[in-house]
């Protein structure tokens, strides 16, 4: 009885129950020995050195020896280390007399509750330490951890760590407890415990490449930018040493955008950077409606202005929402309804 290669979180069956799907340790060990032997045989067959045969070589060899036209990569023949194929399962939780090992076995989620108990114990420790410091009149230490670079484990990751199914409620309770522990001033003692549930967030949000200014024949600096909004596509060229004239598709903005709101949107990036009368702009736009074209040109001009401005101001522009692409599009109409959200008139009979 072989289980398909999945994570434990997806399995809905009662993990604590005994059944024919349980793998004993001896079984897993045998599988590992067979895998290693097979690896060496495969290396011999391919004419490579058995000692330095890596997983990538194995994959290539299997793909060569057993070519498969199946679409799903998981359905093709594979040869991986048994720990990757057989999902981590808990060993049988009770002894030969039927008595469970863990004292919280009958709660159903023994690892989750034991983790909650441990974390609460740490919290009480921290409070006791705080009281001791207060009794001795020492000020509490205040070393703030960098919140910006890390995030908590997601529910799925926690489930895989504990080998148990959790509910959303359980997960949120656990995170609240951890946050409480962190906010206390002397929470640094339990740093190690907390770090098991933290993950580094790669702060790669600003992978922006700074384009240098280009100079045209007259020696005036200019830069280009492109923007889209709904179905409108716009590209803008912003010139330096200008009077603040803006031309769209060869027409002045007063004639192209009779509505005040659109003109406000075009001037928004310039007004934000206090450069209203200093730049000239020439843009081309197609597609979309009146408001979508205005939004597209706004994004294009904001992107073009990035090369004229310091890094800090670029960061301010981003925080004002000028540099983000607006993903909102028209929602599709669904069958059985009159529109995207509007339902047909409800008739009682």
């Amino acid at each position, binding site marked *: 009885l072989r289980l398909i290669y999945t994570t434990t979180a997806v399995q809905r069956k009662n993990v604590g129950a005994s059944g024919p799907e349980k793998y004993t340790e001896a079984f897993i060990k045998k599988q590992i020995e067979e895998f290693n032997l097979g690896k060496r045989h495969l290396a011999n067959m391919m004419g490579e050195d058995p000692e330095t045969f890596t997983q990538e070589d194995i994959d290539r060899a299997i793909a060569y020896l057993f070519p498969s036209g199946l679409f799903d990569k998981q359905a093709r023949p594979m040869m991986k280390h048994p720990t990757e194929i057989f999902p981590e399962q808990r060993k049988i939780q009770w002894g030969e007399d039927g008595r469970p090992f863990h004292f919280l076995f009958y709660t159903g989620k023994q690892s989750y509750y034991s983790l909650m108990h441990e974390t609460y114990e740490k919290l009480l420790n921290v409070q006791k330490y705080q009281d001791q410091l207060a009794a001795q009149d020492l000020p509490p230490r205040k070393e703030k951890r960098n919140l910006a670079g890390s995030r908590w484990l997601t529910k799925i990751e926690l489930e895989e760590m504990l080998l148990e199914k959790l509910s959303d409620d359980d997960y949120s309770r656990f995170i609240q407890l951890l946050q409480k522990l962190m906010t206390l001033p002397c929470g640094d003692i339990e740093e190690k415990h907390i770090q098991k549930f933290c993950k580094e967030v790669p702060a790669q949000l600003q992978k922006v490449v700074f384009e240098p200014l280009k100079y045209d024949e007259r020696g005036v600096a200019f830069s280009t930018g492109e923007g889209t909004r709904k179905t409108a596509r716009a590209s803008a060229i912003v010139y330096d040493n200008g009077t603040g004239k803006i031309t769209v598709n060869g027409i002045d903005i007063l004639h192209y955008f009779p509505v005040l*709101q659109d003109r406000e949107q075009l001037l928004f990036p310039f007004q934000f950077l206090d450069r209203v009368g200093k730049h000239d702009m020439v843009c081309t736009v197609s597609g979309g409606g009146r408001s979508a074209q205005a*939004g597209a040109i706004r994004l294009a001009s904001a992107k073009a202005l990035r090369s004229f401005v310091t890094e800090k101001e670029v960061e301010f522009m981003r925080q004002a*929402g000028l540099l983000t692409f607006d993903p909102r599009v028209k929602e599709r109409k669904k069958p059985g309804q009159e529109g995207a959200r509007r339902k047909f008139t409800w008739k009682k009979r």
Partner: protein
Amino acid sequence: RLTQVRWSRYNPSFIEPEVNKELYQKPWEELSEEEKEKMELKAVQPIKAAPPSVSSSVFSDPMISKFTNMMMKDGNKILARSLMAQTLEAIKRKQLEKYHKAPEDEKGTIECNPYVIFHQALKNCQPIIGLSSITKGGKTYQVPVPLKDNRKRFLAMKWLITECRENKNRRMLMPEKLSQELLQAFNNEGPIIKKKHVLHKMAEANRAYAHFRWW
């Protein structure tokens, strides 16, 4: 598979943008501890795009845009905005007329800025407690209940708009009627203030049922 009914195209980790220019022009040292932390957090989190009705110029005001949206019918934002502009112009004209006719000592008390008048009028119209219908033992009671800020603002704006749409003469246009109502509300007179007082009196009359509230 279940999809949520209220969902947005943005990832839930995206944060609302902050358009106010002055917040960004403060030098680094003047910010308090909390604001510095908030700025650092913001630097790592992705931010949504600014909506088209919002801009950093002095002329865009969140209350005014909210009011314009409430006045809008069938998505005709152009008409709503023009009505709003005409209302503010009408208020300014009326106040300037009053200003030029008033004697010297009263000239200081007359308020000419239409935005200030608008904000003050809305504030004067906001009720403090509202009534909520609670069913207990088969009977429905009107229970006095404290209102949240959003709800207060919404009620004030809603009353203003319905009042202007229903109780005007046949030939009077919306901006004129609105400016009239706003000026009256600014001076704490007029039908909307009366409505607010009526609501307060009802709440006072139903004081006995106040213990039915459980939140």
